[in-house]
């Protein structure tokens, strides 16, 4: 059978397609919730990182620095393993939650760096003008700096989301039934007995998700930039 005939065999099989869609569901759920968690953590860490130095902020700043260093310095697969088999080695703890936490924490470290960079890229004069008018630091940050930083940050965050979605494919390692696992099962001996075709189809699924997402991000970018023609 040729490659394309096998692709057709897969696409026209209700059973295989339902397996792929079950996997797709897991991939989307894990990606979505870990992206939300990652954005939340990343923003928090970035805000702590750019806070002016003070004795009160010393410990949080150290914690955030260690967090970013450790998470960015170790492979995602190992983080997932440690989460799964050490930290959340709780009987019956749902794997989905473990995976969401592991990916959210990982994503947060990268997102925080993007956001921090975005905030720092806003001209210091903007902060000074706000402060000189008597606006407190937090208000200046929220009303003036962050809205401008968001525009600079969106492309980097988009990149991070795309990377995150593809990275979730390693949840099949801990036995979760995601898109990659579905492709493996379809490729197993009792089904198509070759990984090549189902993996190619799964790759197209990932491509479709990522393409849709980057389309959306472009749209957001465009809308945000509409306000300031330079």
């Amino acid at each position, binding site marked *: 059978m040729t490659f394309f005939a096998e692709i057709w065999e897969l696409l026209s099989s209700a059973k295989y397609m339902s397996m792929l869609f079950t996997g797709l569901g897991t991939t989307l759920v894990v990606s979505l919730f870990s992206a939300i968690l990652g954005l939340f953590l990343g923003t928090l860490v970035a805000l702590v990182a750019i806070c002016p130095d003070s004795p009160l902020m010393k410990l949080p700043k150290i914690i955030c620095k260690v967090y970013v260093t450790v998470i960015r310095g170790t492979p995602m697969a190992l983080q997932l393993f440690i989460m799964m*088999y050490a930290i959340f080695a709780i009987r019956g703890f749902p794997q989905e939650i473990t995976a969401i936490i592991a990916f959210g924490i990982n994503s947060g470290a990268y997102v925080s760096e993007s956001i921090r960079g975005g905030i720092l890229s806003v001209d210091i004069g903007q902060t000074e003008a706000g402060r000189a008018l008597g606006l407190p630091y937090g208000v200046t940050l929220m009303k003036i700096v962050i809205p401008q930083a968001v525009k600079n940050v969106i492309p980097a965050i988009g990149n991070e989301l795309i990377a995150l979605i593809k990275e979730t494919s390693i949840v099949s390692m801990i036995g979760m039934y995601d898109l990659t696992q579905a492709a493996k099962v379809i490729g197993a001996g009792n089904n198509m*007995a070759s990984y090549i075709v189902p993996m190619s189809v799964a790759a197209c699924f990932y491509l479709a998700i990522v393409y849709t997402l980057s389309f959306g991000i472009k749209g957001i970018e465009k809308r945000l930039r509409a306000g300031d023609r330079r």
Partner: protein
Amino acid sequence: MKKIVSLILALTMVLGVAFALSSCADTEEIIVRTNAYFPPFEYYDGTEIVGVDVDIMELVGKKLGKKITWKDGDFGTIIDNVADGTMADCGAAGITITEARKEKVAFSNPYYTSIQYVIVPDGVSVATKTAGGVEYIVWEALAGKKIATQIDTTGWIYTDGEINATEEDEDYGYNGVLYGTGTSHVEMPDAQAAVDALGVTADVIIIDELPSKYLVENSSKSLKCYPLYYSGSDGEADAPVEEQYAICVTKGNDELLTAINEVLAELGEAKIQEMVMNHMGLNK
């Protein structure tokens, strides 16, 4: 927007914890670790894990009046998970009894005797021998080949030993059959990946008998498989690489171990062989 995000987060956490607590409270459940790429013992049918081991464990569950929950994952993590006992009570994945594994977990009585097989694709020539009507391959015949195995399986352990063991190494104290022959070891995450690697990065595969037959039967590639034998020394006959499968249980969980042994005894060799044939045949 911020409120929605925090709400979703909070919900996720609450659901997670609630879910965790509810499952924690459920002691009427036996969690079984496996690696569901080992047909006919365990494999996915759609999104369900099925196979000989599943059939056996369902009978154990019925005997104890408990629910059986399957957890899939890397083969290499099964023994540690079961040894630890928090995340799994037992492991059923066509696991061969070895001394090293015995130190960590308790094994049931063996329920299946397997031998290692070699999968050889068309176009790769490996010398075979015949004795007593069985055509087989001896380790020496694989010299210089790229041998694919699934990581952490016995095929992987044996191949690693035969290629790397040296007299100087205290762990071995002998030279492996393939030591110094230029044979290389291609370590794959699962059996199907090894089949896809044939003709690309691998020449042959060493894997247990039944999965080997299963893979050969179903693959679109043109494959043959032969039993793998050790050459007999000093005029002894060549002998296959035999091993025994058993179900492993967290040490100290005697209730479960006893129940498994009872089920295995009730089934008997013939019934288990029938289950094997069912799973081999149903999926042909």
